[in-house]
């Protein structure tokens, strides 16, 4: 049997996904047995122009991590979509936008202001900032265009499968690859993973939840046995798809939600929000307001840390921005 072709690409992401892929360790040899790697900027050679020359659908599998923030990333997404039979949105950024998606709370202008002008660690006397087009004596130079809004891969091109996680756990990657290699795949468009949440694998003891105050991680040393949420820490475990093996709660740290929403959930943050609201132990609107204000100072960053770009909100409202400006 001839070997299949594999592409691994990164867009707006941190590089953790690549490390996680390499984390499958010696199993990489089996991947190598099954595939020729045509593109893997982080781990192997391979040129975009070679990919451009390939016939459509000739790459058997493309693992694409990162969201789409620039025109170049969009170009690559479209190119790899056209060339690949199976396109996997790999990791939280491609799946939900992840932390780069939190940039959607701001406009491009604001992001540039911070990055190139306001940041205290900056030394930029000329006030230089990137331009899509700039003239130099030698001619016109082009940089990729930086979009106002980060989109997920699925919002940009049709995606066959999603592999959640920030980054996806190596074991889950191997399971997914095995499924792909043996053709045992769920229906297209689905997330490869289980349909339950982190609490399902978390070993902590839980009772009925009644919360009088949310605590921030630095405020308490939680006890090792009891459910962290019941101790007042905003643990996202109840809303987050299982897949990590409850790594964070195991080391006494609340789940921050990197595995994204469970199957069938439209909006992760809204789900988590109504769950948290449900367990606040007060019927006095003022007390509830205080509990939320004191315990959840950054609601978007807490509830939508990974999923803002893919949520029903997607980004801060244009009206709010107009009002700010």
């Amino acid at each position: 049997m001839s070997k299949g072709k594999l592409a691994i690409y990164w867009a707006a992401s941190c590089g953790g996904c690549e490390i996680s892929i390499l984390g499958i360790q010696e199993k990489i040899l089996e991947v190598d047995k099954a595939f020729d790697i045509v593109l893997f900027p982080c781990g192997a050679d391979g040129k975009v122009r070679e990919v451009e020359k390939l016939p459509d659908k000739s790459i058997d599998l493309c693992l694409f991590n990162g969201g789409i923030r620039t025109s170049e990333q969009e170009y690559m997404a479209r190119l790899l979509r056209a060339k690949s039979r199976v396109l996997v949105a790999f990791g939280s950024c491609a799946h939900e936008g992840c932390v780069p998606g939190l940039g959607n709370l701001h406009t491009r202008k604001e992001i540039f202001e911070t990055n190139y002008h306001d940041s205290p660690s900056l030394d930029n006397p000329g006030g230089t900032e990137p331009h899509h087009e700039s003239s130099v004596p030698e001619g016109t130079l082009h940089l990729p265009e930086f979009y106002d809004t980060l989109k997920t891969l699925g919002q940009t091109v049709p995606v066959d499968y999603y592999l959640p996680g920030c980054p996806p756990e190596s074991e889950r990657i191997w399971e997914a690859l095995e499924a792909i290699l043996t053709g045992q795949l769920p229906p297209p468009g689905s997330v490869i993973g289980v349909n339950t949440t982190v609490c399902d694998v978390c070993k902590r003891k839980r009772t009925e939840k009644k919360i009088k105050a949310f605590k921030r991680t630095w405020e308490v040393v939680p006890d090792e046995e009891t459910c962290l949420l019941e101790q007042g820490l905003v643990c996202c475990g109840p809303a987050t798809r299982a897949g990590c093996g409850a790594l964070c709660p195991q080391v006494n740290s609340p789940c921050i939600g990197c595995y994204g929403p469970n199957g069938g959930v439209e909006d992760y943050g809204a789900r988590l929000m109504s769950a948290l609201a449900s367990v606040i132990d007060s019927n006095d609107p003022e007390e509830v307001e205080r509990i939320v204000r004191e315990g959840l100072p950054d609601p978007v960053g807490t509830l939508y840390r990974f999923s803002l770009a893919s949520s029903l909100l997607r980004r801060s409202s244009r009206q709010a921005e107009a009002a700010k400006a």
Partner: protein
Amino acid sequence: MAERVGVYVCHCGSNIAGMVDCEAVARWAKENVSDVAVSRDYKFMCSSLGQAMIEEDIRKEGLTRVVVAACSPHLHEKTFRRACSNAGLNPYLMQMCNIREHVSWVAQERDPATEKAKSLISAAVARVKRQEPLEPMKVGVNPRTLVVGGGIAGLQATLELADAGYPVVLVERSPSIGGHMAQFDKTFPTLDCSACILTPKMSEAYQHENVTLYSYAELEEVSGSVGAFKVRIRKRARSVREDLCTGCGACIEKCPRKVVDNDFEVGLGYRKAIYMPFPQAVPKIPVIDRENCTWFQRGKCRVCEKMCQPGAIDYDQQDEIIELDVGNIILATGWKLFDCRKIPQYGYGRLANVFTNMEFERLCNAAGPTSGKIVLRDGKTEPRSVAIVHCVGSRDKNHNEHCSAVCCMAALKFGHLVLEKTGAEVYSFYIDMRTNQKMYEEFYCRLLEEGMHFIRGRVAEITDAARMPGEEGKLIIQCEDTLLGRQRRIPVDMVILMGALEPQADAKELGLKCGISCSMAGWYTERHPKLDPVATMTDGVFVAGACQGAKDIPAAVAQGAAAAARVMGMITKGTVEIEPVVASIDEEGCSGCRICNNMCPYNAIEYDAGRNVSRVITALCKGCGTCVAACPAGVITGSHFNNEQIGAEIEGILWDARAAAGRGAAAAV
């Protein structure tokens, strides 16, 4: 296979057609909404002809779904579900679309109203196509009934049921049953002695083999649903053992601690720290008011214990929690009196000789603090003139908009008693005289003949500041006499304020426990104001008496009997069908996070620790959807209201927005 949807647009006479172009809407639905096979409009869809039309279409046109655009589902969902059943279509494949309360009754212009009706129908069609056939569940009806409130309405209901052979649990909050009627001297319009007609009913209820009475008790919690409610009753500690007490009263007699009785005697008399509210109290068992008892407050005394021969005094008694299964619940919690201090210009609490109606009831009661003598606050002077002010806190935008329904008659009763007992001049200050029940107008005429004076006009002020000769030392009623068309000042010795009947302070809270709602004012809401006055929107929960609205004793009794009859009907039938619209948890997906566990207002969720999953107890679930929204894993589904159905409904309602914006516009960033 595509669904075949029938759309039926009702005119409701001119109720809907007056504001919505029903014909055009029906035509539009057929032409523009996909999968609509039949669309008709008709004058009265709920009439037998209207129903027959739907049934025939289901049979002849092979409809697989039905949308009825008419009134609120509260009114006719059952009607149209039945029509579908008759024609062999699962009733849950019918959706009602409310174009009356939600459209014609609230709209002001025809065109937008017609457009709104279209949107709602488009939503209903989109949703109904995704509805699933459901089968109602059958539940046996427990023949035991809980009656809350032992006033005349509750007593009537209790006795009707008990006499018919069914067990009743009567829960009364105060130490004795009897309600307000026990405080009255005479009852209008017949002037028979209130106690004489009430106390036999009280003891009958107490002694009845089918009645279990919990007095000094309250309903704490209700779960379950019609036919099979579980109720929790808190029986407060009396500090007196009911099984030993003989009701001799020796303890009361010797108790050294005297307190003002603000309940039964409305502050006009005294009782002891250990007391029975009144001599004919039922049960005839005293209660220690721990707040005022010397032993409880200062750790000294225990006189009552020494006096009690059978040794019934028990200072360590604790509240008792009683859990019971009942099939139906009747709420008969009555009314409370308006706080007359809220109208400072009438001087109650400031001017000694301004009395409330309830105080006056006690004053003229032979068993009351003055042994029935009508005297001023000094306890001895008989008034030579008395003013009765109607509508105090009633028919008043600042307090209660409603008419308290009984004050005019009670005022006439008072007038009669004053004339009979003292020969004083009596003035009634009324806005309208409302005497519209059997023998009421006759009673009014009688008082006219007896010489009571009637002055039509709302009283502006009651003052003791004399301005004219003859006013010194009197209370002066300042008012516009609207019949004479001039201001008048009438000096009197005594004023009686006819305070309003108001809903009980905890009516909303109790209603919530039983799953029923209150009007804005706080009266319990009946299922239908005309046609179903004692049932409520919650099956198995009935209301009777003044808790449903201010009313007189005959009406309260009639409602008590009516509620009992409704309950008997359910018991005789033996089973009830309960809505299959319930939540369910996908156990595979449930992570056992327990977020949902204390969410359910009906306690329908249990946690299975062994399997680490939560589960909905279907028989208890009312399909409210609270848990569905709470589950962060999204694994709870509310049948008949699942995401797909609601999503379709929203998309349907936005049919024209999508057309206007072009497909996918919503997704543009």
